[in-house]
């Protein structure tokens, strides 16, 4: 099973590169759906079969929240705010991808000492998760549009989720449910905020919010 986990972690990693390379918000949201599937698959492949009921429930909830509910919310906000793409990111797409490569290498380097102790089945889960988290961070700091930043935040959360996946298989799912709820509320609030920003200023460029400082 470990080999299959690896494949899905690889899918997660590649989806992050897609996130870094694309300027269209629709593509970014689609990628979130892909990541939801990848995360679910990672969760399932990590566990021993037959799968316990709570795991199945958890994965279904994950899929529903991350794969359907959040993208739906984001799409709605996108339409409401009438933005389609990130026009001028602070860090260009090519450089973003190169930075992504560096982060990936860093991820593998950092987890070297942890490798033996933490992860039960898959050697790639930890670096993959770390990479996803850092990619999210990179997107938050390098993009201008608030929606792209929300997507970055979600990617970060996905990374943390993947971290947790190794433990979730054994631990109660309460923690995970809490996290999911957290994210949901966060995105909900952001959606409202973006809508309001857009209504007030006719754009959602966050860097121009600095004009509010005085």
């Amino acid at each position, binding site marked *: 099973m470990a080999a299959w986990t690896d494949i899905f972690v690889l899918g997660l990693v590649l989806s992050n*590169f897609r996130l870094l390379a694309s300027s269209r918000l629709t593509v970014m949201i689609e990628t979130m759906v892909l990541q939801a599937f990848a995360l679910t698959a990672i969760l399932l492949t990590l566990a021993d079969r037959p799968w316990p009921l709570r795991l199945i429930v958890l994965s279904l909830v994950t899929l529903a929240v991350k794969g359907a509910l959040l993208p739906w919310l984001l799409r709605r906000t996108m339409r409401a705010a009438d933005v389609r793409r990130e026009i001028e990111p602070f860090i260009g797409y090519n450089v973003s991808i190169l930075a992504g490569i560096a982060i*990936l290498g860093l991820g593998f380097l950092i987890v070297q000492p942890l490798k033996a102790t933490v992860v039960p089945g898959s050697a790639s889960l930890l670096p993959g998760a770390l990479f996803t988290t850092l990619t999210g961070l990179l997107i938050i700091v390098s993009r201008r549009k608030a929606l792209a930043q929300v997507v970055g935040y979600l990617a970060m959360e996905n990374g943390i989720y993947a971290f947790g996946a190794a433990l979730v298989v054994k631990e109660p799912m309460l923690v995970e449910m809490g996290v999911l709820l957290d994210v949901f509320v966060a995105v909900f609030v952001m959606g409202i905020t973006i809508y309001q920003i857009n209504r007030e200023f006719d754009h959602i460029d966050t860097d121009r919010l600095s004009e509010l400082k005085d």
Partner: protein
Amino acid sequence: MTLTASILHWLAAVLLAPLLVGVINRTKAFFGGRRGQPFLQVYHDLFKLMGKGAVYSQTATWIFRFGPMLGLAVVLTALAIVPAGGLRALFVFPGDFVFLAYTLGLMRFFTVLAALDTGSAFEGMGASREMQFALLAEPVLFAGLAVLAAGSGQLSLSGIYNQLWSAGMRPEGAPVLLVALTLLMVLLAENARIPVDDPATHLELTMIHEVMVLDHCGVDLAFIQYGAALKLWLFAALVTGLAIPLRTGQPMVDLVVTIAGIFITAVVVGIVESTMARLRLVRVPQMLVASLALSLAAFFWILR
């Protein structure tokens, strides 16, 4: 038996490469709702060009005439290094893939010089872009090769291709498929295929490879077009060997499977060309940098 098969692969490439171009053209025609040109049209074109005289620019020198000959000689040599599936190639030594990449670089060097030799502004433009995209394609190729070398523990192309998939299809082979994908992108970039270059537009301004050979005619043009077909075969063989995880151990069966696979790759290229628009020139680097990211992801994968 193996030797015969390798010689046969080389001969197949030499004889069938123009057909590969025909297959791509027919695929594109199919998607365009046309019947398209006959499969053998490229052969007719080549023969017609061979029988023609020539007009040379007054500006041009011997380099202009030397470029096409050297280019064809280089591809014919390079083809002898490329294995068919798991079969050993004709010419095998450690580091042969570096030789392959650099001989192809030599071919590009002289194509570009021949283009600049005419003093034509259009050809200069094409030459400049050719060097730009080569800069992006080269690291992708080498990163891919490094992944394959690391995955197989071999240092020659034949060794690598023989070792890969020797234990059949396994999920651990995922990085190899990734490399196949990146090599497909290199194929598109290096062979003037659509997301990168479109030889069929009517504006020379927007072409890359085709605009470099504007001034060539007759036998020289035949050499160039034949060389381009062989180069397509070469990359298609590299991709096919990775994408088809079949090593029967029967040389002839492997050979037939590989050649069939090469034609399937051509169909895939045709489909890609039909379904994608040409990228804007500023977007091409992004595609190639992304494929570099893919191969490096595969590399870290193998290392972990």
